[in-house]
């Protein structure tokens, strides 16, 4: 249902699976009472760690080069835990003290990651901003030692090198990275509402230039090895190797080490230069960047862009720009100070808390909590080659599954095929995929008009029209062919799964898989079980979704499930606000300034007013009408006049090619006037209007938890942010209630209730939380 919202959302806030443990190391200092700001701490620590055996960092000498290996034995991924950091410093002190050592190589023994960042859990235990600032100062000082190392240190990077990992790497003298598809460098701290607090804001601009550095830190995007080389973030690339006399990955790391040792020797004996002769372009760029006026312009542009995209709701980007600016304009010393202070401030913001919560939630929702399916699902068959069906096919074949895409007309299967091909071909044009890989991927897709091959399918997903009779018809047709183990999943957005399952001979094999459009961009998958759905069916459906790269929430069957049920509340209130004369543009901007990636009116147009009307009809039937004309009546009236939204060129807005600045459709306004009602002044301030939309959403979400539709608040938050565009910095409706206080929300809703009646009546669970402030969802 929720169309473009997450596309925007996704650009702004893409929490990476692998990721980011922001600079958590430091908080361990807290337990050590982080005494002084001088080198004292590290000295005393090296003593203590030399007494205990090292478990995370080891080193050996290869000729006159020390190879330092990072390997956290307690985790699959290396993170900058306090243990690792202190052992690393101790090892470095030993190496620096050894006059025979001429160079060092820093490498990870883990396949697939160098250092994925600092441990996020610890940061949450920081008690105050001053504490966090202090930690940042400490580690900044340690990395300064790396930077000023008397012997060259070569960072040899294979896999993830993110956050604190990257900050460590750029404090070294030289960086070599493998060209592996899994090698990524980046500073994703901003996605957690933080900033690179280990000197990143100071070193990056010097390394890759101001514009690139700002881009990296403000978007938090992952940089591929090739790109990193072009940017000057790494000096040299090493190709990943195939298998030799040992497995490919193992040999690749060995090879990386061999090359890095060679380079370390080369630097030590001055055969390998640390700085390359700059090209004319670079020299020119440097000269331009040397001009204060130019830099000023860049800060200004970046700030404006940030303001436009975040509406001032996210503090981290602003602090990043501020830290960078301080460093460049007032010197490194001031820069480091600003960085650590800003870092401290950010760690205690509610935004960081919410974003870190979302990160954890997302990790949880990327796991299968229902066991291993009895039979591994490999072959999909999808009914209906429309936008959804083809989208599901696309994410499936792209992840190595095979898919049959079936529809009833040649036109529709041709369109579906084209949709999948186009999406892959776009990747080819962006060089994310080779044309050969595209062809091989496409060979896993079969578009067809008949049911051939369905007998060997492991799962059938239907994405046909939202009509219970058609659903029943295809279900019966399919059940006649498929094998007994095959699952039947429905991608319905509103029809109850149990109604669909009513026509099935094997209701235990029937499940709902609600994808969000566009399927390849929207990360969420809502899986719906009925009382009859078997556990293995659920485990299989979840495993399919995970293979497709989805973030999954599992909900109980009910009209609209979870996501659409909440969105419906938003839309219904938005329609009433339009009737009250709020004006589409004003309403949209009110909601985007609240933090939604897209306003409710634009969202309806994106989804399609006919579809919105259909959803409204089903849910109105299920939950009853509240007050005045129902949203359904108005939406159908609009769509029957041909105003179906973006797809028909006209909705509540007018859509013209080539212009982004859209105007309100006067004819739609005329229709809305028909339903005009007076706006009660007591609840029609800007803020009230925002809260009317938001409170209905939040109350419905809490009600879903109360009714047992949702399994837990975590999935509720993830579903709302990734499926409905709920403002990420609020962390989802449940975290929103926790941080604003249920009591406050209830009192606002009571005020609305006085005017409008029961649609604003808080649900029991919300009331419980309001009465007992110690109750929290998280």
């Amino acid at each position, binding site marked *: 249902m929720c169309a473009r919202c997450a596309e925007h959302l996704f650009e702004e806030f893409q929490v990476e699976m692998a990721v980011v443990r922001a600079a958590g190391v430091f908080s361990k200092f807290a337990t050590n009472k982080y005494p002084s700001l001088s080198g004292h701490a590290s000295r005393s620590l090296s003593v203590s760690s030399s007494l205990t055996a090292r478990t995370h960092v080891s080193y050996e000498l290869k000729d006159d080069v020390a190879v330092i290996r990072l390997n956290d034995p307690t985790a699959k991924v290396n993170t900058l835990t306090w243990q690792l950091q202190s052992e690393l410093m101790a090892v470095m002190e030993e190496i620096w003290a050894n006059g025979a050592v001429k160079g060092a190589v820093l490498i990870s023994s883990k396949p697939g990651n160098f250092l994925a960042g600092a441990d996020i859990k610890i940061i949450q235990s920081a008690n105050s901003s001053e504490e966090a600032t202090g930690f940042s100062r400490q580690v900044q000082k340690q990395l300064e030692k790396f930077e000023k190392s008397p012997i060259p240190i070569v960072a040899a990077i294979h896999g993830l090198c993110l956050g604190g990992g990257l900050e460590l790497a750029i404090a070294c003298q030289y960086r070599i990275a493998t060209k592996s598809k899994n090698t990524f460098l980046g500073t994703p701290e901003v996605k957690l509402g933080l900033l690179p607090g280990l000197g990143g804001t100071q070193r990056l601009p010097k390394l890759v230039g101001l514009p690139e550095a700002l881009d990296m830190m403000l978007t938090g995007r992952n940089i591929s090895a090739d790109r990193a080389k072009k940017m000057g973030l790494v000096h040299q690339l090493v*190709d990943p190797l195939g*298998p*030799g*006399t040992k*497995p*490919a990955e193992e040999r690749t790391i060995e090879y990386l080490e061999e*090359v890095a040792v060679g380079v370390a020797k080369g630097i030590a004996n001055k055969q390998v230069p640390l700085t390359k002769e700059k090209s004319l372009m670079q020299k020119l760029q440097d000269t331009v960047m040397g001009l204060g006026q130019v830099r000023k312009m860049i800060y200004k542009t970046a700030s404006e862009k940030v303001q436009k995209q975040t509406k001032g709701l996210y503090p981290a980007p602003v602090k990043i720009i501020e830290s960078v600016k301080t460093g460049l304009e007032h010197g490194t010393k001031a820069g480091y100070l600003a960085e650590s202070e800003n870092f401290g401030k950010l760690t205690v913001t509610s935004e960081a808390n919410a974003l870190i919560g979302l990160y954890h939630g997302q990790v949880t929702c990327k796991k299968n909590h229902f066991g291993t399916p009895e039979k591994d699902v490999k072959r999909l068959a999808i009914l209906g080659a429309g936008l959804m069906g083809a989208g599901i096919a696309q994410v499936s074949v792209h992840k190595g599954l095979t898919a049959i895409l079936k529809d009833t007309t040649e036109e529709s299967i041709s369109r579906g095929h084209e949709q999948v091909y186009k999406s892959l071909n776009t990747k080819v044009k962006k060089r994310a995929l*080779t044309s*050969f890989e595209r062809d091989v991927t496409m060979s896993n897709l079969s578009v067809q008009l008949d049911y051939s091959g369905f007998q060997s399918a492991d799962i059938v997903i239907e994405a046909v029209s939202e009509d219970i009779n058609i659903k029943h018809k295809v279900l019966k047709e399919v059940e006649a062919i498929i094998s007994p183990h095959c699952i039947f999943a429905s991608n319905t957005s509103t029809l109850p799964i149990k109604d669909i399952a009513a026509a099935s001979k094997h209701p235990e094999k029937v499940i709902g898989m609600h994808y969000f459009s566009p399927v390849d961009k929207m990360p969420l998958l809502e899986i719906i079980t009925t009382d009859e759905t078997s556990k293995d069916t659920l485990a299989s459906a979840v495993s399919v979704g995970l293979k497709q790269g989805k973030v999954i929430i599992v909900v109980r069957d009910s009209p609209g499930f979870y996501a659409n049920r909440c969105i419906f509340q938003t839309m219904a209130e938005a329609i009433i606000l339009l009737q009250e004369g709020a004006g589409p543009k004003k309403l949209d901007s009110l909601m985007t300034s609240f933090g939604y990636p897209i306003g409710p009116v634009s969202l309806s147009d994106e989804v399609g007013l006919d579809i919105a009307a259909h959803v409204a009809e089903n849910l109105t039937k299920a939950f009853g009408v509240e007050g005045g004309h129902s949203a359904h009546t108005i939406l159908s009236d609009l769509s029957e006049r041909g105003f179906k939204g973006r797809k028909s060129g006209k909705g509540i807005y007018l859509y013209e090619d080539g212009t982004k600045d859209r105007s309100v459709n006067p004819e739609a306004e005329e229709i809305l006037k028909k339903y005009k009602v007076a706006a009660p002044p007591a609840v029609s301030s800007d803020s009230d209007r925002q809260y009317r939309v938001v409170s209905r959403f939040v109350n419905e979400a809490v009600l879903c938890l109360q009714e047992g539709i949702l399994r837990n608040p975590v999935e509720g938050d993830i579903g709302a942010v990734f499926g409905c565009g709920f403002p990420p910095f609020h962390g989802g409706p449940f975290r929103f209630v926790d941080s604003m206080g249920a009591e406050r929300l209830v009192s606002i809703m009571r005020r609305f209730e006085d005017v409008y009646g029961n649609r604003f009546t808080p649900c029991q669970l919300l009331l419980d939380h309001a009465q007992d402030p110690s109750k929290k969802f998280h």
Partner: protein
Amino acid sequence: MASMLLNTMWSGSVRPSRAVWLGARSLSMTAQLQAQVQTKSKKTLARPGVKNIVLVEGVRTPFLLSGTTYADLMPHDLARAALQGLLHRTGLPKDAVDYIIYGTVIQEVKTSNVAREAALGAGFSDKIPAHTVTMACISSNQAMTSAVGLIAAGQCDSVVAGGVEFMSDVPIRHSRKMRKTMLSLNRAKTLGQRLSLIGSIRLAHLSPELPAVAEFSTAETMGHSADRLAAAFGVSRIEQDEFAVRSHTLAKQAQDAGLLQDVISFKVPGRDIVSKDNGIRPSSMEQMGKLKPAFVKPHGTVTAANSSFLTDGASAALIMSEEKALAMGYKPKAYLRDFVYVSQDPKDQLLLGPTYGTPKVLERAGLTMSDIDVFEFHEAFAGQIMANMKALDSDWFGQTYLGRKSKVGAPPMEKFNLWGGSLSLGHPFGATGCRLVTTVAHRLQKEGGQYGLVAACAAGGQGHAMVIEAYPQ
């Protein structure tokens, strides 16, 4: 196809040799090998009910660095020379073969069925059909095994198979955009249409398209893949350079000793008679060590000097059923026995064809590694040869990738490519296969061995191996 642009670097850098350190012991194995004949797994690979197919003769033009004496020819001229050489050498009547097959890789568009053009030009009867096959560096192996197939199936009794490659000239095309414009121009009806098409030509249209040096599926050049392969197997730069020096040294000795009898003399129009390969340049390890890596920079190990160079050349072989050969009064050189084609991952195992092909063909023939007296492997890169050696010698590789309990075992160097190889003799892609088979036959005769093995890798991640049995002398 890889080393396309390397020969310029290569040719300047090496002087005729001083290093002959490997030479002495290599040719003195004959007696020892003969002694082994008694302990073979099988006395012969002849099988009841299966036709014996023989190599009657194999010849080749001298293999020359591209851009040298052959520079002004066309591919079919070289193929023609090889065919004429074969006719001359065998005294074969010009209408006495049933079929002609040629292998080639980079096709000259004017003579896309180069087999037919060359056959007609060489004076073969115009009643003899001819076709051209392509399978990268094993194209002429494919030509030969196609011939074997035709004879085994009873379709033919005698077939000429060969291969040709001409790298002094390659088809360089207009860009796709330009081609499209030019083709539309053909169809344009009015002057106005033509002018507007001509007007649409931009500078970008004029950039030419060179023949792909890279593997199509992976977009990786072969040299780059070879460097990664060498690294994967831990083959050092020194090992590679040593092997390359060995190849050149042995080739030089063989050339000087007159062992390369398959080479025919060729009077190039407007030039002198060519009768020797010109890429053989033994050099010192010190000289080899001076070269910079050609593909993986700066830490790679494959250089112009330890890779095969771009070569012009053609080969031809006369293949017959044994009966037919004897009936025509020929004394065959060898039996062509079991052969296999293999293919694997074109990215990480592009050049491991010999590793996959060798155990497979041995198993087919019922032989073991120790039964083989003569090994001739195609030397695309020194690093590729050494990687294959290590793969064959690795238990882990054998278990993981070859489905075996243990390693295959590497061929002993004293039986391996003793008369040089593609690194030194040159590697005209389409023509090398015939050279390998003919060399095995000649070495079996010279060294008195019974069984020989040919193995080669090819672009696309493919490979070939063939067992050859000496014809009783």
